[in-house]
């Protein structure tokens, strides 16, 4: 596992490189999840609103 350790140590700069890549991935993942979640939520809200109107027999758009 010497190779792995060497890889993880990043030539002694592990303390800089891993946090840099880590924060990039965390921020990107966070924004991804937040965007997708709010998009799905909006789809659901729209669908339920439409169904509600159909049940009442309103003219659809």
């Amino acid at each position, binding site marked *: 596992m010497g190779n792995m350790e060497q*890889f993880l140590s*990043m*030539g*002694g*700069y592990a303390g*800089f*490189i891993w*946090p*840099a*890549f880590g*924060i*990039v991935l965390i*921020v*990107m993942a966070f*924004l*991804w999840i937040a*965007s*997708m979640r*709010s*998009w799905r939520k*909006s*789809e659901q*809200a*729209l669908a339920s*609103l*439409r169904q509600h*109107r159909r049940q009442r027999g309103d003219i659809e758009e």
Partner: protein
Amino acid sequence: MSIHYFANPARFTRLAGRIQPWAGGLTAVLLLIGLYMALVEAPADYQQGDTVRIMFVHVPAAWMAMFCYTFLAVASAVALIWRHPLADLAAKASAPIGASFTFLALVTGSIWGKPMWGTWWVWDARLTSVLILFFLYLGYMALWEAIEDGQKAGKAAAVLALVGAVNVPIIKFSVDWWNTLHQPASVLRMDGPAIHSSMLWPLLIMALAFKAYFVTLLLARMRMELNLRRIRAMRLAERTS
């Protein structure tokens, strides 16, 4: 095909629905390849050692910071001039993505700076102008939030985006000028020697991965904004009927 061809929200939703999964998949694949190349395959720099690997996220993030602002400004111009109904949604949707990349460019630049300059932050021309760009993004998003009427907010934000776009080069120039006047005593230039192809490839792949990420999130966020707009219209109709 006129500019209004894709203005039809239904057509846009259909098209976006088809593109979005592919863009999402492409993002994942490119990101994995890019990370592998950046962290494993690329050689350490003879001068900067392994820290040079930070460049593979820092530089594409900085590119994206600029790219998103350009996109935002162009979309705003389209919204103002042609009143394209999707353009201000595109501008609004791109702002948080651009702001995130700008933030990442700042943070990774700072982390890279510590081993390079021996300090977390120097008022280097590039970091400084990226910092100001970050403020521009924040102002743009705050203005959208502050005005309640969606249409008014869109137009006001578009005016701000264009004013900002005119200012970005001026700010960049003034910061460069300021930096040459106050050159810090010992700064290692980041540019280094001409870039080797073993470094160019991971850089390009990461840049492409970020682009695909942008497209995926842009489409998702635009669809969300469209849905919210429809919901609001339906609620308004309910109130008045």
